[in-house]
């Protein structure tokens, strides 16, 4: 339902009260409770213990909650992470279908034990190695669980795996991100995935950059991205939703196309814009997405009002 709208996700550190207590006020669509790379080894045990109570803290503003677990500690992390209120488990550095199957089976058992409807929790393989890239099709089709592809063969860990420096002036992940995107699309799986934007400074907190990134992603048709800083949240949530003009045009296309169908025609122009089967398919998707975003925004507004009244 509303957890399908994840325009902007952000990692939060459950072990840091400053972050976890305030996260809900930032307006994100999704918060990812992290047990992985933002938590040093010595802190992971304590972090596991905090996940369950962090769910309610972080979702006060209507955000969905994901948990990013550790690849080497799946058996320890999953029991602490599969709880009502969690929508998705993120599996870092997924390399093989077997890893997906293992996680899926364990999550199924835990859903039963912990009172979560079986199959509710989505599983997201994060592709951060060359091996994960080449195995992507098998990974995405490994389980019957709802899959959302994330980390499409880009990012920091991918750079270490390939042995390359980041923040150069060309797209180093052109092949890996495209190959992963194609596999996901061919399986009808939605995937997040960015578009190459030259970021020479490596800075992730400038609001102007956020607005620019949102524009670029919007034009490219990308609907989900991870923010590395709270300043990016609002511009991304706003920017990745359809504009009013786009919604109006989509409705026009729909209405026009119905007319075409009735007349046995297949194409026409409205205000110099083509209306045909391609535009119709696009319009349907736009309207669907726009409504989902509006519903999520309403949900977040209600949750926020409730939480603020309680404070």
């Amino acid at each position, binding site marked *: 339902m509303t957890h399908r709208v994840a325009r902007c996700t952000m990692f939060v550190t459950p072990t840091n009260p400053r972050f976890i207590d305030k996260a809900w006020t930032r307006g994100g669509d999704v918060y990812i409770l992290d047990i992985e790379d933002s938590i*040093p080894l010595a802190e992971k045990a304590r972090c596991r213990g905090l996940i369950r109570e962090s769910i309610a803290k972080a979702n006060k503003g209507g955000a969905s909650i994901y948990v990013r677990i550790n690849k080497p500690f799946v058996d320890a992390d999953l029991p602490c992470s599969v709880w009502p209120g969690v929508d998705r488990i993120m599996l870092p550095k997924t390399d093989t279908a077997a890893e997906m199957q293992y996680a899926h089976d364990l999550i199924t058992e835990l859903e039963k034990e912990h009172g979560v409807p079986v199959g509710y929790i989505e599983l997201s393989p994060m592709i951060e190695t*060359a*091996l994960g890239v080449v195995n992507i099709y098998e990974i995405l089709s490994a389980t019957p669980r709802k899959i959302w592809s994330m980390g499409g*063969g880009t990012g*920091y860990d991918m750079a270490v795996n390939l*042995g390359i*420096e980041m923040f150069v002036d*060309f797209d180093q992940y052109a*092949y*890996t991100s495209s190959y992963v995107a194609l596999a996901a699309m061919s399986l009808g799986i939605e995937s997040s995935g960015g578009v190459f934007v030259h970021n020479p400074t490596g800075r992730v907190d400038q609001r102007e950059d956020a607005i620019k990134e949102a524009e670029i992603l919007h034009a490219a048709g990308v609907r989900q991205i991870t923010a590395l800083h709270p300043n990016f949240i609002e511009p991304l949530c706003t920017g990745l939703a359809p504009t009013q003009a786009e919604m109006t045009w989509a409705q026009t296309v729909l209405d026009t196309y119905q007319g075409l169908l009735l007349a046995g025609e297949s194409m026409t122009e409205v205000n110099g814009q083509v209306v045909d089967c391609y535009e119709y398919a696009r319009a349907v998707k736009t309207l669907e997405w726009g409504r989902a975003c509006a519903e999520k925004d309403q949900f977040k507004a209600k949750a926020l009002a409730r939480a603020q009244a309680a404070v």
Partner: protein
Amino acid sequence: MPPYIRRSLIALSIDDPKLAEKAFDSWADAIVLDIVKQAAQDWQQTLKAQMPLAIAAASRGGAEVFVRLNAQTAYAELDATVFAGLAGVVLVGVADAAELVLASAKLDALELERGILQGSLEIDLEINTAQGVWNSLEIARASSRIGTLTINEQALYQNLDIPFETTLEVEPIEFIKGQIITVATSVNGQAQGMSYPLCITQKEVDETTLKKAILRARDTGFKGALCAQPSWVKLCNEGFRPSADEVEYYKEVRQVFAEGLKRGLASVPLNGKMIDVPVDLRAEVYLEWADRVALRDQQKIQAHQQQAISLQSLN
């Protein structure tokens, strides 16, 4: 982190009268020997006699030595060309996994026969056809001997009927290179190659241009390059490695992060960037890479010194 320190490779013919001298003077990390088959009936015998000498000559400067064969004729040629002292075989134009399995089995037999450590001979792929590209993963997975992948750009352009243009903004085979790098990395091997357009012009260029081209190749994911010009070798050796600045930076990262850990911090600032677990991991990996490069350079220096000494003692 790259499995092999092979920043620079040069190709030499076993018939080259100056083989030893060129190999020695090149300072390349690896020499690739190209064979010449005489028209005569007994080319195998001739090669068998030539190869051990050629391998010895090529290794004088401390380089790894490979022999390069066409996949279609390789099975017959391996017998005549594989001898102790070789690091491995470069197979050109492997079409599918079956071909590779045959070659690998042949190497099993030759290692046993010729007192070469079992499994030590590498197979490297030089890709020059659409089929080689499409099947690259399957081929790379067909044998644990697979070491490096490279593309023969001029041959591949011809095979794909891509016009030979050297001034384009985007390289026509950008995605093919990405694929080969990804495949190589996925099987714990590595890829070598030069960036465009130098990879197809293959000419001598000024230092600035060459440095930039090597940096681009490195940033793409290549770990070394076949040097079309001997003059490329020095900058390849210097470019395909963590730089001195990077080493210094990564040492600081490790230090600062360790200190932070002691104080119970998950991440620490350094020059405006946050140093956390992934950054420290990268630092560890790069420092280890730098150490191995230093070791390799040391080996080559020693090989050169030993050569000089043994030449002296002859005089």
